[in-house]
């Protein structure tokens, strides 16, 4: 695409028409308008989305200016006091910020590793099931929790892990694995695992759907051919199913990496308590408490800029790596 750019070489003989910079430009322009005309319906159909993205994703970027001001809501834009990078300096010198960052990354990476692998494995296993009824049943049951709100899930989890009549403690005590009920919810160092486990339980089935859809797109002839060649079921999974959904996996993985810092805060907010605060405080909760709730809009914006910048960097890095290694990427 970039080969036709003009004016790159000033030593060219001006007499040669082919190297005329204007000619190149005209050609390129013509090309664009011609394609545009040819594909006008496609362009027209994508227009609403471009507008949507512009309004909801690009216009709000104007608000980033807030991070460099001492923003007071009552004042107009030109009356604000500009403070440069003051809020960022404050952010990067706050211990609690690093604590929140650590927790966010920890839960995010754990969620990514476990929450990414399990749906793939689950999808492949489901795919191997023969009884159609049973398969449908398992699929439905496993994705139902997705529709349960975190408030309810948090209630269920705390009840299950309770020391008084909690199923998990009853089971462990009943099996004589432990002598006394464990206070799961009071142990900070276990908090990350509890969050990850409940997240897997809630979202596993739902995340499986996409892979199952991808698997159905694999040409059945490939399986038939491999069976003829004497491939076992495991061989088929390894050599046909997995490579067949590889593109889906990489695309979803890259997108998830982009959201590494944006893991929301409902889980942590609802499952956490004062005792485990050191492990449950995540960036978005930090931004809420130390930014918005105190009316420190500028500080909150600074946090969200940090979030976005890190996300973009991560996304491009991972995308670049994938491009190099597997020739698959989303950009």
């Amino acid at each position: 695409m970039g080969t036709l750019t003009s004016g790159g070489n000033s030593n060219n003989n001006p007499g040669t028409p082919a190297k005329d910079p204007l000619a190149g430009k005209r050609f390129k322009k013509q090309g664009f308008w011609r394609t545009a005309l040819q594909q006008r319906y496609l362009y027209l159909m994508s227009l609403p989305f471009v507008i949507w993205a512009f309004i909801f994703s690009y216009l709000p970027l104007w608000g980033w200016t807030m991070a460099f001001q001492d923003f007071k809501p009552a004042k107009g834009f030109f009356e604000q006091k500009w403070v440069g990078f003051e809020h960022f300096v404050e952010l990067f010198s706050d211990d609690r910020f690093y604590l929140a960052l650590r927790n966010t990354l920890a839960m995010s990476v754990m969620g990514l590793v476990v929450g990414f692998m399990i749906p793939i494995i689950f999808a492949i296993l489901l795919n191997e099931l023969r009884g159609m009824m049973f398969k449908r049943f398992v699929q439905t049951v496993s994705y139902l929790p997705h529709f349960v709100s975190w408030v309810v899930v948090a209630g269920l989890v705390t009840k299950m892990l309770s020391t008084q009549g909690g199923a998990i403690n009853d089971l462990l005590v009943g099996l004589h694995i432990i002598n006394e009920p464990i206070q799961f919810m009071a142990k900070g160092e276990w908090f990350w695992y509890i969050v990850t486990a409940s997240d897997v339980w809630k979202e596993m089935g739902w995340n499986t759907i996409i892979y199952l859809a991808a698997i159905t797109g694999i040409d059945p002839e490939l399986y038939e051919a491999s069976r003829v060649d004497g491939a076992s079921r495991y061989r088929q999974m390894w050599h046909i199913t997995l490579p067949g959904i590889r593109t889906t996996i990489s695309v979803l993985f890259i997108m998830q990496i982009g959201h590494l810092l944006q893991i929301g805060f409902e889980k942590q907010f609802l499952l956490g308590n004062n005792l485990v605060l050191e492990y449950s405080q995540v960036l978005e909760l930090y931004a809420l408490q130390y930014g918005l709730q105190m009316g420190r809009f500028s500080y909150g914006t600074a946090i969200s800029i940090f979030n976005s910048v890190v996300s973009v960097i991560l996304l491009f890095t991972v995308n670049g790596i994938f491009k190099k290694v597997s020739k698959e990427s989303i950009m």
Partner: protein
Amino acid sequence: MVSKKAKWVAPVALASIVGLTACGGGSGESSSAAADVESGPIEFSMFSADSNSNWVGMKDKVGAAITEKTGVTLAAEYAIGGDTQKVSLMVASGEYPDLIMPKGDTSKLVEAGALVDLTDLIENYAPNIKKMYADDMNRLKYSKEDQSIYIIPTYTGVGQTSFDAGGGFELQLEVLKELGYPEIRTLDDYEKAIKEYYAKNPTINGQPTIPLTLNADDWKIMIGVTNPAFQATGLPDNGEFYINPETYESQLHYKRPEEKEYFRWLNKMYNEGLLDKETFTQKSDQYLAKISSGRVLGTINQEWDYSEAENALKGSSDATTQNRIFGHFPVTLSEEYKDHSFMDVGFPGGYGIGLTTNLSEAEQIRAIKFLDWLASDEGQVLVQWGIEGEHYNVEDGKRVIPQEIQDRKTNDNVAFTKETGIGMYTTMSPHYGDGVQDATGNYYTTNFPEQIQNAYTQPEKDALKEYGATTWKDLFPAADELGTSAWGAAYNLPAPTDSAYTVAFQKSQDIVRKRIPEAILAPAAQFDGIYDGMIEELNSADIVEMEKIFTQQIKDTVELWGTGK
């Protein structure tokens, strides 16, 4: 090539559709002023930072009567839970409701210039409000620098005398009965009663007895865990601060050595297995479920937080179960301290209702007239008592609530409130407090000694009789023993907005809410180490600076109110 692309187009498209639908919705309501602003029907939008699950859009009896009399309909929005970001969001977007009850967030609105100065409006259009706050007008002013009136303090009644105690330390009536109604004055008495009953009754209704549990969920840790520390060591409620009454020097109250002893007692209770192990991990609903099971012998809380759970017990047909509700006792660390719950803080001012710049001048006048009507005798009686002939009768010049109405009020409160609206409009109306009588010699509110005694269930009456009291308040030290406060109640004052204060305050709360539970749950030998470590963290420069800012705030308040020595 094409197939490869198609493979990933599907998930991307799916993901973006999910994203799209998630972004749908949004709000776009704004109140449009009716043409006839001066007297015609008008709708005001209103926001309250408290939650209210009983609101039915003024379709209740009292609401309908208010609309009929004033022509005003309120489109009210109540916050959900302890929602503190809503007001911040309003400030950020610049879109305000017409009337607002922002609780602790008043200063954010003032800073944004969103509130209307009510001084002249009250002076010119609100004779009832003027009469009501006559002596306390100074206490309505915002600050020493900005002496405007932004908020009419409607959360507290003017001239309020409390006739009943809802706080202190709670002990189950059944425990008292079985132990022959012992005196409950100190932590030792309290602990002994719980221990004794627990030893005899390790299970209740087949389930393990819970000797003592507290509600420490989220911000309620203040109510159930940290506030009792100053209560038990003889201080009135000044939020998170101890204020020296002479110098007004303020410090976080947990720094007082007496309070450490209180927490040491909780630590001991925990290590002896008397304090519920789940105290610091349970959510409010789990706490309430435990209480409504009748297995909890003692809790330390305010009645408004757990009364919901008691309703189930009160409605039971079993006499023992009915007896498993709580009595209130002024328990302190030792005899030398006095419970200061009933200290006379004067008119505390504080939380209330304000008008926003969303209203045009004519609408502001209409709105203040509306509030003024609520403050009139007619309005107050309607809000507090309901409709004559329906919810109360006048017999020999006395307002009397018929027994069947009182029964519904006590036993079926939620449905009763939804249907009648009685009690629902009190927090938005400027009103007189309990114990104030109108021109006819009747009390404005329905809380007066006879009425309170009537509202008690039989087990409560029986227990009180044993203690030679008519209400729980009788057990508490009376106001005249306790002195007065020059700054009212500090938890009720607008918090400083300076970020040097807010950030350090939040930080101190993060520390306290983490370390105090940790100290209580530690083995006894480690308690001192953890607690002292917390004090050290609370002595960091920024927190000490925050205390200084608060000290200044108190000094300014005393000066503004003219209550100094």
